[in-house]
């Protein structure tokens, strides 16, 4: 009781400068010259709700999402809306999506959903659509154009011809390191839609894109990858200020490609190793990214956490709040033209747990 009360008070007292706590969501504030145009929103991702049997679900992953939802509801000021970044389910089944949707239904506010591969490959997003709506769409909110893409589709031959059952197709795509998987992409049809959608938007309007996969090429072996990333980036290139938020990678990543700042979200379920931890693979982790501390498995929620993001003049400053580690702040540096960690960017400032091997 007193814990709940303390936390609520703490959240109210600290509002936008939360430190030393850990909410497994992403809080976003966009700041403009006119304070009436400022707003914030929350971002929860990668919950991987996994059915064991009947009404029995993997406790660990349930707890990650329950905590995210409960703490989002304590935020003051109340976020304008919430984004769920995809992979609500583990095997895309109706019971998993229903159970996840039920937990998310406790959120106070509108939730926008992003499609993840774990939600999609059982029935190609059919049941997900019944619950959450369109696979890709856009909306405007207080001067910012938001785009939500379904970036986890793949080659038709893989999707439609390769697997004898939908269950096997889902299982093959669910294995991150499965060599039978297939690269993610946005695809021609959706890129045509995006082109038309962006044609209506002024070039000085800040654009924020949500995708599940990175919209950049990091490591193909684990699908930290979008096959047509360059083509999508080209459509975003004419805009002054573009930010891409993505899930899927279960870890802190950030990057700058041209005018586009990329920032990942952490998972509520479990963290992933950085691709360089796999000794047999070449990968291209963005050089800018200072890695998060190595996860301690004995702390069940370690290396899951949330981000508090505020965007001044259309550029993001991201505070990563981790459950069992110090807060990280990654802010867009206007002079250098890319996101930068406020504490650890310089090599000599990094701490031993940030060394991965």
């Amino acid at each position, binding site marked *: 009781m007193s814990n709940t009360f303390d936390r609520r008070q703490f959240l109210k007292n600290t509002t936008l400068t939360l430190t030393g706590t850990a909410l497994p969501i992403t809080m976003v504030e966009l700041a403009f010259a006119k304070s009436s145009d400022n707003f914030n929103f929350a971002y929860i991702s990668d919950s991987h709700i996994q059915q064991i049997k009947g009404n029995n679900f993997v406790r660990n992953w349930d707890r990650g999402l329950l905590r995210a939802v409960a703490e989002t509801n304590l935020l003051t000021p109340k976020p304008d809306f919430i984004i769920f970044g995809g992979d609500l389910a583990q095997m895309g089944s109706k019971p998993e999506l229903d159970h996840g949707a039920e937990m998310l239904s406790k959120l106070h506010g509108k939730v926008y959903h992003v499609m993840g591969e774990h939600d999609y490959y059982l029935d190609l997003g059919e049941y997900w659509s019944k619950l959450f709506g369109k696979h890709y769409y856009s909306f405007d909110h207080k001067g910012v154009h938001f785009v939500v893409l379904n970036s986890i589709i793949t080659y038709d031959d893989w999707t439609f011809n390769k697997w004898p059952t939908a269950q096997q197709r889902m299982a093959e795509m669910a294995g*991150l390191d499965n060599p039978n998987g297939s690269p993610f992409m946005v695809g021609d049809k959706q890129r045509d839609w995006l082109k038309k959608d962006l044609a209506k938007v002024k070039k000085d309007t800040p654009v924020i894109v949500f995708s599940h996969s990175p919209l950049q090429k990091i490591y193909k072996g684990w699908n930290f990858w979008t096959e047509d990333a360059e083509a999508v980036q080209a459509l975003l290139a004419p805009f002054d200020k573009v930010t891409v938020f993505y899930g899927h990678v279960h870890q802190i990543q950030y990057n700058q490609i041209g005018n586009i700042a990329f920032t990942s979200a952490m998972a509520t379920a479990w963290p992933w190793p950085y691709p360089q931890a796999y*000794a047999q693979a070449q990968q291209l982790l963005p050089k800018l990214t200072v890695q998060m501390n190595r996860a301690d*498995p004995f702390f069940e929620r370690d290396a899951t956490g949330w981000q508090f993001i505020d965007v001044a003049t259309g550029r993001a400053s991201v505070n990563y709040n981790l459950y069992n580690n110090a807060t990280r702040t990654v802010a867009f540096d206007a002079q250098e033209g890319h996101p930068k960690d406020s504490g650890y960017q310089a090599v000599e400032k990094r701490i031993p747990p940030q060394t991965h091997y």
Partner: protein
Amino acid sequence: MKLLINSCAAVLLLASSNLMADEFTKNDLERWDGQFQAVVKDGRALWTSAELGKNGVVCAQCHPNAANTHPETYPKFQKQLGKVANLWEMVNWCLRNPLEGEPLKADDPRMTALLTYIAWERRGVKLEPGKH
């Protein structure tokens, strides 16, 4: 006569096995590698098997390609256990906790397969026992 033949055969056998004691053939190498790779394959199958634990969670969910298991650092002082531990003890920790299952004996063929797969995915990395 029969005895003599047997003795000769025994001498010949001895002689030939002495000759071969420190040699092995291409066939040997292929066989041994085949045996090893079969166990790597078993280990990979277990790594992605929902049967290993009791809640359907598989090793590969958190450790794709056995990454972040760093076998080259074991044995090491495992701060969470408060003692120097072997990698198989950490595998059992995972079986009990995230997989909500039962631990395996250190010499269980399934444990051997898991450790073999982990080591194979980490091949080429230098040994650094005790490293953190």
